């Protein structure tokens, strides 16, 4: 039993592979459903959410409150969906949001540009040149998006467990290989990996709660969770903000204890000026 995420460039056959795996493994296929459930849960327009997730933020709008909030919401929704187990997720950011979960098999599809152009031409009726330009633009957008938000290279093979080249191997062959890997002991769901998934969900929910608060959404903090105990690290401007963050974290369902390692910027400043004389 595993969770399979499929990443690919536009028109590389990702959905077809997901359907093939659904048939082989009996897992549930998910993509846009995650965004829909997220939009319902947090009462957001689905299109807005989709746009925030697909378009790299411009230089001017880099990480507005709305942007970072939406991304955290999607992360929560995806982890929530992943808790069902036996799912194939072929939407955005799968390998990035589920990083570090042992029973997640991260698959990437590579297809030659020519094949992708042909798929695009067949599906949209664009000319070859227009299709090629559109594909290259989307690829560049995604690369920038991943680099900006996660500091990772979209094309780094170490981000994935298995990369299949559909230019050389058939969909059926790729499906067979993925089926074998998904059934191997390395990707089996264990108590440890489920606990890690629950911790990841709690971390995301705490971050979502903090981001939702206009007073503290932009504070530079990191959240880690382990079996209900949440640890918050970082630096904030004032004691008041620190207390607010702790209160918000403690109000999240499932948080049993909150450890804070938040320093105050004013203390740091004092230490910097007077600490070394």
């Amino acid at each position: 039993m595993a969770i399979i995420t499929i990443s690919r460039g536009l028109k590389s056959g990702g959905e077809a592979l997901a359907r093939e795996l659904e048939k082989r493994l009996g897992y549930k296929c998910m993509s846009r459903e995650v965004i829909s459930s997220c939009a319902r849960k947090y009462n957001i327009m689905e299109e807005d959410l989709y746009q925030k997730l697909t378009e790299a933020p411009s230089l001017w709008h880099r990480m507005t409150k709305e942007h970072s909030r939406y991304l955290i919401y999607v992360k929560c929704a995806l982890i929530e969906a992943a808790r069902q187990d036996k799912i194939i997720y072929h939407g955005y950011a799968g390998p990035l949001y589920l990083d570090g979960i042992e029973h997640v098999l991260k698959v990437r599809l590579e297809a030659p540009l020519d094949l992708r152009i042909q798929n695009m031409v067949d599906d949209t009726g664009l000319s070859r040149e227009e299709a090629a330009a559109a594909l290259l633009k989307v690829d560049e957008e995604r690369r920038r998006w991943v680099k900006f938000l996660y500091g990772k290279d979209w094309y780094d093979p170490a981000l994935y467990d298995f990369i299949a080249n559909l230019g050389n191997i058939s969909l059926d062959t790729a499906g067979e290989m993925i089926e074998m890997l998904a059934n191997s002991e390395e990707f089996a769901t264990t108590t440890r990996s489920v606990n890690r998934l629950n911790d990841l969900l709690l971390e995301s929910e705490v971050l979502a709660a903090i981001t939702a608060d206009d007073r503290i959404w932009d504070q530079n903090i990191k959240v880690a969770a382990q079996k209900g105990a949440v640890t918050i690290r970082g630096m904030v401007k004032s004691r008041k903000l620190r207390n607010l963050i702790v209160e918000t974290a403690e109000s999240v369902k499932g948080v049993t204890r909150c450890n804070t390692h938040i320093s105050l910027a004013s203390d740091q400043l004092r230490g910097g000026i007077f600490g070394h004389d």
Partner: protein
Amino acid sequence: MRIICVSRGSKTHGKDFAEALAAKLGYHCLSREELFEEAVKRRIPIGKLETAIVMRRDTSEALSIELEHYKALATSLLCERALENNIVYHGRDGHLLLPGVGHILKIRVVLDLESRINLVSQSLNLTRNKAKQYIENVEDDRRSWVRKFYNVDWDVFTLYDMVLNLSQMSVQNAALAVCSMAQLPEFQPTPSATAALRDLLLASRCRLRLSEDEKARRLNVKVRASEGIVHVTYPHGAVKGLENITTLIGGVEGVREVVCTAAETNILWIQEAFEPEGPSYGSVMEIAASWGAAVELVKFTPGDSEEVASPVPAEAESEEPSGWRETGIIDDEDRTYQDETSDIARLYARLISDGKAGRKRTLQGSQKTLLNSIDRATSYRLIILDGIFLTKGTSTRKRLVTEWSNALSDSLKVPVLTIDQIVSKYHFGPKQTVQMIACAALAGLSLYTVFHFDDQILAFLSRPELKWRLVSMVAITAFVPFFAQVYGTVTSSVLKLFKFD
């Protein structure tokens, strides 16, 4: 003769994976290190080559020749082993060593950076930062090596069939998963793959034969083979030592004929049916002569079925392939060679007599078969794709030729043209003469009008009324592109006439 090539970086468990895979499948395991040892035995300065490539120095001609010797040695060893047994080869360039052999399962093995840093730190007793630096340096060296040798990027993942990340998978389980992949039909040897392997073996043996001769060793030649015919290309002006080539290569087992051509580059001409006496030959020869290029012929019959359609059973692998017509290279009965009166044979004979012969091959299959058959390390200046899909209607044929041209051009980064496009782009015939004279007359007339009636034109352009200003604007907007087109045609015709590309 099943072949699996594992490309690996430093400290990625790639060696362990390849060995585990070979053990599970019962294949022979061959590593790049073994090829290096053999190269050292044969006096190929492999260390010098590595240093020159790693230091990004421009390799001298002598070193480039040694690079060819190493490549020939590696290819011959790999082909010999592959023809005798099923093999797993592991090294940085496994996926590129046997161009044109279609059934190879090409795997790249990677590991996450943190695990690699830990492995390097432990094995070389380095700090974390130094271990990271070490890995980055080694990766850069490998990229340079692959770029220099094969003219491609090591990190382009479309060159592999699959990439396995061993960060979470155990070597044994990953090998087990690949074991069943290796049994799939698309990775079974086909007659065309066997023939391609034999051609590579013959060419590399001939190149090595030259390297054993004191005089011929220093010759900067490229050797390729097809159906027992060995093609040697050498730069124009390199005459010294060439006289022995035919004798030396003629003595290698399996050589039927040796064809030597002076050429700096190659033109690949792909067609379903050639017309040896047709006008296309003259058009191609004209550019081949002006570029100093050898012309390689591929008679290609497109087919819907992949060449993997009927794999060769394991027990029949060592036997001579039969029924070639069905699955790959179309060849004649009893493995004799093509009919001397066939279109490609007659065209090839003309090329030999004109001193422009490259290889000739006959292939059948899909677009992938064609792409796989082209050696990326060979320098092609132009690909001619014309007269294929002859059984299709005109519009379908046109569309398919365009699609295949785009695919070839995207993949090989070489211009792909039809004969008609070549004629219009490179040739200067009666039609172009008339066009040039007409455009020159128009350009001359335009210039004469502008300079002779300059006062009237200026007066017309400077009329203050809005209506006339608009008319002058339209006139200028129409005249400028017209003149640019006419003048451009004249200059491009003149350049064509004097053969400036």
